[in-house]
């Protein structure tokens, strides 16, 4: 049971990193990023590929964050010139293109077969110690990310982000260029996703392109909607609920025999779809949100 809780806890924290980044991009700045999973994937693959070539993990993690952040730049530039809905479509297309590249460039990524045997983080400790160490490292990472985000939100920079979200044209008319702020936010959120990806790769020890489908992006969206868009605490709470739901669905399979995993996947998809619709309709401020978004 311990091992199970530690594993679930690790998943929660990985998703939390994703949610913190997305919440900053959308909740704070109004950027509709439907391609978040792309940065997750890039971070995972970057770190995994380097580690498989012998790089020490701290270095590969750093590169993962950097790769994700750099990949966010063209999207950030696009975000400057596009309306929200166009940005949504472009980011979605971006993430599908990234997945396609990961799938096709077999020479580098082993394509659909994926990358097995990725060095486990803290593998040297062995046994339960490794799992605990991963959990603690993730805890530290999430705490650091949350703290950095909190500082950001409380600062003049954060104030300007909210101003951009509320009325970008007014910000421009006041002499400020929303561009630099949007790009930085995009990059920071992407870097967090990249680090999450690196943790994911060295936790699971196997990654493949199918793990990085748009559904994952919308899992994260569901987290921030559940928790109340714009609220850091809400993002964390929403993540807990999301993982509870994902894990719960696995338990249902154990309780009800004869349900194939593939069917369960469809049920999960249905529930996510339904949840998106219902929350948007009836509770846009989320479960813990204060004001209607």
């Amino acid at each position: 049971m311990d091992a199970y809780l530690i594993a679930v806890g690790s998943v929660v924290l990985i998703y939390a990193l994703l949610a913190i980044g997305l919440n900053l991009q959308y909740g704070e700045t109004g950027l509709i990023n439907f391609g978040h999973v792309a940065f997750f994937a890039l971070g995972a693959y970057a770190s995994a590929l380097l580690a498989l070539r012998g790089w020490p993990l701290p270095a590969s993690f750093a590169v993962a964050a950097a790769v994700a952040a750099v990949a966010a730049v063209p999207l950030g530039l696009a975000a400057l010139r596009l309306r929200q809905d166009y940005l949504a479509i472009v980011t979605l297309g971006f993430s599908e293109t990234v997945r396609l590249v990961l799938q096709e460039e077999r020479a580098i990524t082993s394509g659909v077969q994926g990358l097995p045997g990725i060095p486990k983080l803290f593998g040297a400790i062995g046994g339960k110690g490794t799992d605990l160490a991963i959990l603690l490292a993730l805890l530290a990472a999430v705490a650091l990310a949350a703290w950095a985000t909190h500082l950001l939100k409380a600062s003049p920079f954060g104030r300007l982000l909210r101003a951009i979200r509320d009325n970008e044209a007014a910000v421009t008319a006041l002499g400020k260029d929303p561009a630099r702020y949007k790009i930085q936010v995009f990059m920071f959120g992407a870097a967090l996703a990249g680090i999450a990806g690196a943790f994911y790769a060295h936790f699971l020890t196997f990654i493949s392109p199918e793990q990085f489908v748009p559904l994952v992006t919308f899992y994260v969206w569901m987290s921030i909607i559940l928790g109340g868009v714009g609220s850091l605490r809400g993002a964390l709470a929403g993540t807990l609920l999301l993982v509870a739901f994902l894990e719960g669905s696995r338990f249902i399979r154990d309780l009800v025999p004869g349900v194939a995993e593939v069917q369960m996947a469809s049920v999960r998809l249905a529930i996510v779809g339904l949840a998106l619709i219902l929350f948007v309709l009836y509770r846009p401020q989320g479960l813990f949100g204060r004001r209607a978004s």
Partner: protein
Amino acid sequence: MTLVGVANLAVNGLVEGAVIALPALALTLVMSIARFPNAATGDLMTLGAYVAVGVQALLVGSAFGTPLLGMTLATVAAVIVCAVVSVAAYELIFRRLGRAAMVASLLASIGLAFLIRSLITLVIGHEQHTFALPLVRAWNFGGLRILPSDLVIGAVALVVLAAVFAWLRFGRSGRLLRAVADNPDLARLSGIRAQRLMWLLWALAGVLSAIGGVLLGVKSVVMPELGWELLLPAFAAMILGGIGSPAGAVIGALLMGVGQELSVPLVGPTYKIAVAFGVLFVVLLLRPAGLFGRPELAR
């Protein structure tokens, strides 16, 4: 690459483009009136394809089972189901979101897409299906190979498009729809007329998606990701052609189809989606209004 090779790709691209034009048109009409990109369009196509393939399977062997009659009835069934689902989605979801920000409708449409897809796989399963149609051999004009089925697909698509455009141009409700699409402020029509118009719009979107799905299913195979995979090219076509321009969406779709096919010798067949994305990205950066759209609507 020989000239004949290029011509073959171009022909295939035109057929694909004609099929993409149907959801692209649905997208652009909904976009200009309801003001959001309807991400459920793709999965509505998938639904249409599955309904049609199912109905056709039922009819095979019966008096109605001939290819022509069977397909026609199957398509009619698909059209009815998708139109109903589309209007229901409007009534239950998008109308209620009317005053909310665009993101809300967009997220809801993603949710709807997931819901439709998951229900299809729960009820029918993940296997692929194909339409029961006679095998055809390609006609060969000195190297230029044309599949008769492709010709039929292209023809059906063009006929449907022509009918819709005729309706938009000459039909009474169609002209009204067109007027509202051109001038968003007209959407403030009050009362039953506005309601009826919206039902027409969403039904039309359903019809176009259904036929697009069937044609796509005929051309390739019917599988759960069928429509979703076409969503990005359809979006790209809509944006390339210009928001608010139905004709633009069709031309954009044809260009996208041909462009994607012509890119195959360069990047391989699996990167077609990437090509769609590339086109989308470049167009939005250079000329967000697209070929025939109006710049005011773009940014």
